[in-house]
């Protein structure tokens, strides 16, 4: 055997990394013992003591809540549209048609979920569970992102009123807790708007999420903007590009690419923050657990239920995180 194969065997690796000195060996044994004890405890609970029927028999509740069972086919259609749009977006090189396709799909999806025209209306209080979480998160992300970009650009503007407004807005909102802003949105928006306009609670909640996250996204984008060397803007100007064109073609593409990790991080935060909506009688994924646990046969099954929704949150957040890494690598 030559020395190369010696260093590649698993036993040799263990020897080199985990058992090279006496204290490392001791540490390895202690850690291994601790991990085994935890794994046994968790495994024992998961397979023997836990009652997973609370999850398996309530799956429809988790996902769509009290949505009328005979209309659920519409939600399946929405899923198909979403998957189809994402697939076409990934597979197709040309992106131009997405500008038309996506708004059309959005309207289609909202119509399918809410009803009206030829479909029976399903009130927003019946939009529960994961459906509401996904809806609130997606709409908030889509609205907060452009507002955040505008705020970041406004903060750098040479017009003092615009710059002042954007700075004050961002600094004010960043100093307030999200729950405070959601509360203000639920209570104060009806007071501020004229009496005839009745805003749906979901709309108020989304407004709160958007206002909050736009401020944080503005700072993330501003970080990206500051990373652009001055020479880029000078070269753009020297070629005769006016400010809007140089922003659109030169500055923003580069700035947003730099800010992708921070921006997607904010989106992930936003997604998890939708759980706060459960405090305002909007029954999304976290809120539906209360209804589930109120059922007499499932009293006290907290661990299974929260582990399950934890898993669902994790799956979505991890997917976003992976997409972020793909986006970063794709950009030059």
């Amino acid at each position, binding site marked *: 055997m030559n020395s190369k194969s010696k260093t590649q065997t698993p036993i040799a690796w263990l020897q080199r990394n985990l058992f090279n000195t006496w204290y490392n060996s001791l540490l390895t044994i202690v850690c291994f013992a601790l991990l085994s004890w935890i794994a046994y405890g968790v495994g024992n609970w998961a397979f023997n003591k836990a009652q997973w029927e609370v999850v398996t028999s309530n799956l429809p509740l988790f996902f769509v809540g009290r949505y009328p069972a005979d209309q659920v086919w519409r939600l399946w259609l929405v899923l198909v549209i979403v998957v189809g749009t994402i697939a076409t977006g990934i597979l197709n090189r040309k992106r131009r048609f997405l500008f038309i396709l996506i708004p059309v799909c959005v309207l289609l999806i909202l119509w399918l979920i809410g009803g009206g025209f030829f479909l029976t209306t399903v009130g927003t209080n019946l939009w529960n569970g994961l459906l509401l979480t996904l809806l609130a998160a997606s709409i908030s992300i889509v609205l907060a992102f452009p507002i955040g970009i505008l705020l970041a650009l406004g903060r750098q503007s040479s017009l003092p009123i615009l710059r002042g407004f954007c700075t004050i807005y961002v600094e004010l909102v960043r100093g307030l807790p999200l729950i405070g802003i959601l509360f203000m949105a639920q209570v104060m928006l009806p007071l501020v708007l004229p009496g005839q306009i009745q805003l749906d609670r979901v709309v108020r909640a989304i407004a709160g999420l958007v206002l909050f996250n736009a401020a944080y996204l503005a700072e993330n984008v501003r970080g990206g903007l500051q990373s652009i*060397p001055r020479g*880029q803007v000078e070269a753009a*100007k020297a070629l*005769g590009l006016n400010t809007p*064109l140089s922003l659109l073609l030169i500055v923003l593409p580069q700035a947003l690419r730099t800010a992708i990790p921070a921006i997607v991080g904010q989106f992930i935060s936003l997604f998890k923050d939708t759980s706060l909506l459960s405090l305002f009688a909007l029954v999304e994924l976290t809120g539906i657990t209360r209804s589930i646990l109120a059922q007499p046969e499932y009293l006290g099954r907290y661990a299974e239920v929260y582990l399950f929704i934890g898993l669902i949150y994790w799956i979505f957040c991890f997917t976003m995180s992976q997409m972020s890494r793909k986006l970063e690598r794709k*950009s030059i």
Partner: protein
Amino acid sequence: MLIAENVHKWYGKFQVLRGVSLTVSPGEVVVIMGPSGSGKSTFIRTFNALEDYQQGRIIIDGTELSADLRNIDTIRQEVGMVFQQFNLFPHLTVLQNVTLAPTYVRKWSKAKAEEVALQLLERVGILEQAQKFPGQLSGGQQQRVAIARALAMQPKIMLFDEPTSALDPEMVREVLDVMRSLAESGMTMIVVTHEVGFAREVADRIILMDEGLLVESASPIEFFQHPKEERTRKFLSQIL
């Protein structure tokens, strides 16, 4: 083609340009030399409004530079600039870098912009790199792309702000060759550089700037062999 009259510029209390005047005729190649901090880069950057100025007048191709934005944008289309740091757009290919401005500013069709771009890339000798990104090119290649990008707008004047100062010595030659052929084709050029060989061979006129003032202006032979001013002699003794 270009008339700068008595231009003054202050950065706060510090006066960078102290009444510099310059007249450049069409087809003329003017080289500006001088010690660092003399204001030569600042001076040429006033020509395309990358720097503003507090006093004096600048008239380019008959149009006077003013604070009006539309006026500035129009003048910038006629004045091309090549920077010391290249300033290519890293997220676009070489071809896209060159076609960007003509497509969006001069509103040419994609076909026309690409045709002109490919001709220019061939002229500067990098046709085969057209689909690469700036990050994949050497410094000399990037600067040549920058020259092609500026030429794509078909400007009347080309400004060069120390175009070879950031290049490795082996690559300086290829860029200077491109600039030389550009001069021979009749382009009006104003070049800030330390390249004495280029100045001697290509310039119609050499100007020395020091501490915000125009010290001497002479033909290459006069400048290098019979300098009139003391400061010119001092500068030449340092660089030759």
